């Protein structure tokens, strides 16, 4: 009975989330479109810059259909997307999907690697510090993780570049990857940005793991477990961790989302051709179809990750499986 209920609540949650997610995406696309429209200048002015003549501006606007009202262009874009057509970039004339996909692939590779390294590391270190609360190990991880979270990410990036690229010469400072490179070269190229990202997101997850574990550790049932004579690691891993998991998973989802959409500064420092840089470029050029596509992908990433996080939180927490 309980099992069935759990399945039902899972699928209801999924449907609810998917519907809400779609609404969010439409709202975000409208915000992005009209927000970008409010910015001064348009793609014609951004392309020609100081050298614009009124005729050339007029010709570009005419060719791109920019003389039509904004709401009309938005609706046309929306109907295109509903038919699976993301349009062409206003600035370069290339297809939006063709411009975005390789960049998105690069971003996902970077985020995936950073996530695969940082999540187990953060949770492991967090659990270890919680087990040895107040000990030297706990204090050391506390201090180091606080340090890495208190400095801006570009600073971490530059320090790593100075040490590993400029002084030691072990790793390249540019993280440019291209199709002709071998797997080893690719890994070497993205080692520094991955290290930077790991350091940036580590502290947040680590500290959340530690503090939510410790707050569970002070509850009576844990004391009971100790009194039963269980050793500390069994208590922490089997009794405390499942109940402390929900906030940890939420923070992990937030940080994974950040790894996909928020790393533009790291992309700039390491000249990594990712999607964040593409979006910034497109906003600067007022290239609306590209801005829209990036915005949609980023929003979908957040919505998707948070939905997954909610589901995983239900899965790992036995109490949430049975509705009261």
């Amino acid at each position, binding site marked *: 009975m309980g099992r069935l209920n759990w399945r039902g609540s899972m699928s209801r949650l999924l449907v609810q989330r998917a519907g809400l997610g779609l609404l969010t995406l439409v709202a975000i696309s409208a915000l992005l479109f009209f927000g970008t429209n409010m910015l001064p200048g348009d793609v014609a002015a951004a392309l020609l810059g100081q*050298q614009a003549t009124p005729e050339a501006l007029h010709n570009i606007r005419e060719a791109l259909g920019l003389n039509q009202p904004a709401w009309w262009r938005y609706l046309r874009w929306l109907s295109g997307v509903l038919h699976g057509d993301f349009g062409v970039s206003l600035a*370069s004339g290339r297809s939006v999907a063709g*411009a975005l996909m390789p960049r998105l692939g690069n971003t996902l590779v970077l985020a995936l690697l950073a996530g695969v390294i940082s999540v187990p590391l953060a949770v492991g270190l967090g659990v270890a510090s919680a087990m040895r609360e107040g000990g030297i190990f706990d204090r050391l991880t506390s201090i180091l993780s606080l340090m890495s979270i208190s400095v801006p990410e570009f*600073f971490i990036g530059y320090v790593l570049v100075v040490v590993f690229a400029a002084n030691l010469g072990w790793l390249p400072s*540019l993280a*440019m990857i291209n199709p002709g490179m071998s797997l080893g070269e690719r890994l070497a190229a993205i080692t520094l940005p991955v290290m930077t990202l790991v350091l940036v997101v580590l502290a947040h997850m680590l500290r959340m793991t530690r503090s939510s574990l410790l707050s569970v550790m002070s509850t009576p049932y844990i004391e009971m477990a100790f009194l039963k004579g269980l050793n500390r690691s069994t208590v922490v891993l089997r009794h405390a961790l499942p109940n402390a998991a929900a906030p940890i998973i939420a923070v992990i989802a937030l940080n994974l989302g950040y790894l996909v959409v928020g790393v533009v500064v790291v992309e700039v420092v390491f*000249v990594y051709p990712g999607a964040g840089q593409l979006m910034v470029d497109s906003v600067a*050029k007022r290239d609306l179809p590209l801005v829209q596509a990036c915005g949609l992908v980023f929003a979908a990433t957040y919505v998707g990750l948070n939905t997954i996080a909610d589901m995983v939180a239900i899965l790992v927490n036995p109490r949430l499986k049975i509705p009261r």
Partner: protein
Amino acid sequence: MNRRGFLSGAALFGTVAGVGGGLALAGCAVPEDTIPSRGGALRLGMTGGSTSDSLDPRTFVDWVPINIGYQIMNGLVEIDAQGNAVPELFQSWEAQPGAIEWTFKIRRDVVFHNGKTLDADDVVYSINLHRGNTTSAAQGAVENILDVRKLDLTQVRITLRGGDAELPATLADYRLLVAPDGFTDWANPIGTGAYKLETFEPGVRCITTKAGSYWKPDAGHVEAIEVLVINDAVARVNALISGQVDIINRIDGRTADLLKRNKHFQVIRSQTGQYAVFAMNCESDLYGNNDIRLALKYAIDRERIIKTVLNGYGVAGNDQPIPRTSPYYNTDLGQRLYDPDRARFHLKKAGKGGLDVTLQVSEAAFSGAVDAAVLYQAAATGAGVTLNVKREPADGYWSSVWMRAPFCASYSDGRITVDGALSKAYKSTSTANDSRWRRPDFDKMANEARAELDPSKRKALYAECQRMIHDDAGALIPMFMDHIEAGTSKVQGWKPSAIFDFMGQRIGEKVWLAS
């Protein structure tokens, strides 16, 4: 702390500090091979590229596509290291008196990458891409051309609206590149250049390789060229130091001084006529008064700004756009200096005891604009002028502040010809006349000078034009800013540019790598 500030503090300190005191001076640090060696891949780390870049010359406004354009295609006329217009695909030229009608001879036996031989049709087509009903950014640069006609396979006649004795130099515009007649496939451009396109990822990188034998005997040395777009200044320097690129463009004075101490690197400094300007709208009530304009021109300490903001990599401007390096530079005009007393005198003449104005600036206008404005503010206080510095966002600066604000920062790249510099921002008809300074007598004199074929008469007329701008116009030109670029000492044949940087963006075909 900002990212840029961190650069010289740490990134360079870490590397340069360890290397002993090798003394390097710009351009002469590296003993040059007399015979260029062939082969190797040249790697350029450049700012000035974005994902929206295209290799259609009509869209060229930024340096990465322009550089790639010159690797693949040739221009009609080239500007040499001394700033003279010399033949490229146009082999020779001749003007009729009045400089309205010109005949250009086209170089023979030049072959496009697709095997077609260059002729007059290709040239006419390529020029016409930028004329008439076009989206070209070069439309303004060629609007003086009334007609381009093929005379025979190797000759074209260009007829102008108004005489231009320096038409060949005008035709050295970086957008006037030559493609085959009727060519439209700009994703795979075809030209007569030394290199052909292999891969182009806009805003990321571009690779070109040698396209067989090249018609220029002393160019096209390296086997392949890779351009990496590195828009972040710190990342660019890091890439050079860690050996991932051979040459980088646009470094600042502080970085240049640090790199010069290391004998593994060379720094090239070019005076190309690029200048900063604070433009006052002469049609506004306040700045319409020339005494106000003069007061503001005397209230700025140019030398201090050059020393602090440019680390000395610049020359004081004299409130007119022609640089000292030009043969037409008016040497009779005294350099305008920081003179609080004269500023007060002009304020009094304008009937003002003091002045309270707002200067709108942004790093988009020129690098260091905000610092320059703050230094100006300090100096102006001494002249009884309260200068409020309003920092504007870089994004959208050219459409929302420039040409709209009554007093704002701007810049101009060096221009190949004097007329180019004057037409850009000082003639009544200029679309970039950011000080709205409109004087029919100035327009008349500038056009008269442009059509004058006698060099000494032209020089006298242009000197008078400079005086009019210096005395009256709304452009406060505090400084000419050098272009600084840096590279490893392996790069040979590398010289300062007369125009733009990277040897007029033709560096790809000109330098070679020491073996």
